C-alpha cells in the first residue's frame, strides 16, 4: 500500500492542483499580456484590454442582460427552493420521494436535454424567445442547488423554537419573521449568491433559449470566433472569475455562520 502513503498522496495532491489550476492561471496572464496572440512567451504588461472593455457597448448590454437574468433567477429559485427545502425537512407527506426526486432531476439531466425540451415546448406554444425564457430554464436548474443549501439550514432548525414561539403567543407571521427567518437567513443569502453565480456562467440553456438579447456567456461564445477579440475576452474572464470567487467566499462564510449558529458540523453540511 505504498501508493496510499502520506508522501505519495501529498505529491499527487500537488500535481492534481497544478492540473486544476493550469487554465485558471493562464487567464490573468494573457489578460495582462500585450500581444493579441494567446501564446507564450508573454510579450509585456498592459491593462489596455481591461480599459477596452469599458468602451465595448455590446458587452455592456450583455452584462446588463446577465444581471437581469441572474438576479431574477436567484430570487425565484431561492424562493422555490425554500418552499421545497422546508417541506422536505419539516413535513412527512405522501409522494414525497417522487416529488422531491422530480424537483432535483435537473441536477443529473444533461443541460442540452433541458434546453431542447423547453425550446420545443416554447415553439409549440408559439412563445417568442427572450430573456424570460432563459430565466425559466435557469430557475429550473438552480432550484436543486438552492434546495441543497437550504435543506441543511432547515434541518438544523430546532422545531421546538417555533413551537415555543407559538406557545408564547406569537403569530404565525411573527414567528416566521422573528424566529425562523433570522435562523435561516444566512442560508438564504448563500443560496442567492450561489444561484446568481451559476446563472451568470450558464451557457447551454442560454444558448438555446435566448432571443436577440444575449447573456454574457453567449456573448463570450460569439467573441471566441474572432482572434483579435481574444485578449479582451481573457480580461473579461479574469474579472468574472474575481467576482465569482468573491461571491463564493461570501456564500461560504454565511453558510458556515449559519451552521455554527445551529451547531451543525461545518465541513460536511451542504456538500
Amino acid at each position, binding site marked *: 500500500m505504498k501508493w496510499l502513503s502520506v508522501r505519495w498522496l501529498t505529491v499527487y495532491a500537488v500535481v492534481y492542483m497544478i492540473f486544476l489550476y493550469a487554465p485558471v492561471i493562464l487567464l490573468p496572464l494573457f489578460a495582462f499580456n500585450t500581444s493579441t496572440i494567446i*501564446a507564450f512567451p508573454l510579450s509585456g504588461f498592459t491593462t489596455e484590454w481591461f480599459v477596452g472593455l469599458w468602451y465595448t457597448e455590446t458587452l455592456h448590454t450583455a452584462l446588463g442582460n446577465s444581471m437581469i437574468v441572474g438576479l431574477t433567477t436567484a430570487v425565484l429559485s431561492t424562493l422555490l427552493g425554500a418552499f421545497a427545502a422546508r417541506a422536505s425537512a419539516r413535513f412527512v*407527506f405522501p409522494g414525497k420521494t417522487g416529488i422531491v426526486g422530480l424537483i432535483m432531476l435537473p441536477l443529473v439531466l444533461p443541460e*442540452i436535454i433541458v434546453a*431542447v425540451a423547453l425550446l420545443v415546448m416554447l415553439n409549440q406554444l408559439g412563445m417568442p424567445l427572450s430573456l424570460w425564457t432563459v430565466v425559466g430554464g435557469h430557475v429550473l436548474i438552480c432550484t436543486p442547488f438552492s434546495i441543497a443549501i437550504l435543506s441543511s439550514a432547515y434541518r438544523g432548525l430546532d422545531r421546538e423554537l417555533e413551537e415555543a414561539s407559538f406557545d408564547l403567543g406569537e403569530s404565525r407571521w411573527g414567528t416566521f419573521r422573528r424566529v425562523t427567518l433570522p435562523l435561516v437567513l444566512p442560508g438564504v443569502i448563500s443560496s442567492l449568491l450561489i444561484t446568481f453565480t451559476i446563472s451568470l456562467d450558464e451557457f447551454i440553456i442560454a444558448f438555446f433559449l435566448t432571443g436577440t438579447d444575449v447573456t454574457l456567456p453567449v456573448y463570450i461564445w460569439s467573441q471566441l470566433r474572432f482572434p483579435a477579440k481574444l485578449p479582451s475576452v481573457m480580461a473579461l474572464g479574469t474579472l468574472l472569475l474575481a467576482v465569482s470567487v468573491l461571491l463564493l467566499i461570501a456564500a461560504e462564510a454565511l453558510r458556515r455562520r449559519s451552521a455554527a449558529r445551529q451547531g451543525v458540523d461545518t465541513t460536511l453540511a451542504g456538500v
Partner: protein
Amino acid sequence: MAWRFDREAVQGLRLISPTFAYVLVMLAAPLLMVITFSFWTQDYLTIDMTPTLDNYREAWTKPIYQVLMWRSLKISLIVTAVTVILAFPIAYFLSFHVQKRKALWLFLITVPFWTSYLLRVFLWKVILGYNGVFNTTLMGLGFIEEPLTFILYNLNAVVITLAHAWAPFAILPIFVALEKIDRSLLEAATDLGDSPMRRFFRITLPLAMPGIVASTLIVLIPTVGDFITPRLVGGTDGLMISNMIQIQFGKANNAPLGAALAVSAMVVIGLISAAIFFGGKKLGGRVR
C-alpha cells in the same frame, strides 16, 4: 395521531406545491412534449403530426448517427473512468490525511470550476495546441524535439478537458462517503491483523462505494450532453451526439430528428446509469 398526520401531510404538500407545479410545467411537460415531438416529422417550417417511427429508424440505423452515438458513449465512459480514478486519491487524501484545513482544500478544489466554462475549454486549447503551453514547455526542457500533435483536436483533448471540468463533482461525493467511514472499523481491522492492503479493499473501498457510484453518475450523465468541449477541442474525430442534436435544432432545421436523437441518448444513458447504480449497490455498502 392519524388526524395529525393528515394535517401535516396537507401542510407539507401545500408548501411544496409551488415548486412542484413549476417543475411540472417547465420540466415534466417539456420532456413529454419532446418525446411526442420525436414521433412527428418536419418539412421546413410545417410540422406533420402523424405519429411515425421514421426519426428513430433514421437515428438508429444511419451510420453517421450510429458513429456519433457510439463515440459519445465511449468518450463519456472514458471521461467518467478517468475523472473518478483521478478524483479518488484526492478525496482519500483530504479525508484521511488533511487534519485542519479540510474546508480550505475543498474551497480550493471548487475555485477553478467557477472560471467561465467556455473560457476553461478555450484555455485547454491554448495549453494543448501545436504551439501551446504544454508543447513549448516540454521542448524548452528538452524532453521532445517536435511538438506533440496527438493531444489536440481529438478524443484525448476532450477527455482531458472534461476530466478537468467535472473534477469537483467527482471529488465531493467520494470525500463525503469517506468522511462517513467509522475510523474505529479500520483500527479494529489493524488490531485483528489485517494488512493495510486488505483493510483498504475490505473496508474503505466497499464503504466508499456509494460515493464512487454517485460521482460516476454525476460525471457520466452530463458529459453526454456537452457540445462545447467537443466543438472547441475535439476536432472532427471528437464530435459527439450533442453536437448533432444542436445541429438538428439549428442549421439542419429538423427538430423532430433532433428530439429523437436526444430521447435516444437519454434512454441509453439512463439504462447504463441504472446498471451502474445497481452494480454499485451490490459491490459496496457493507463491510465484508
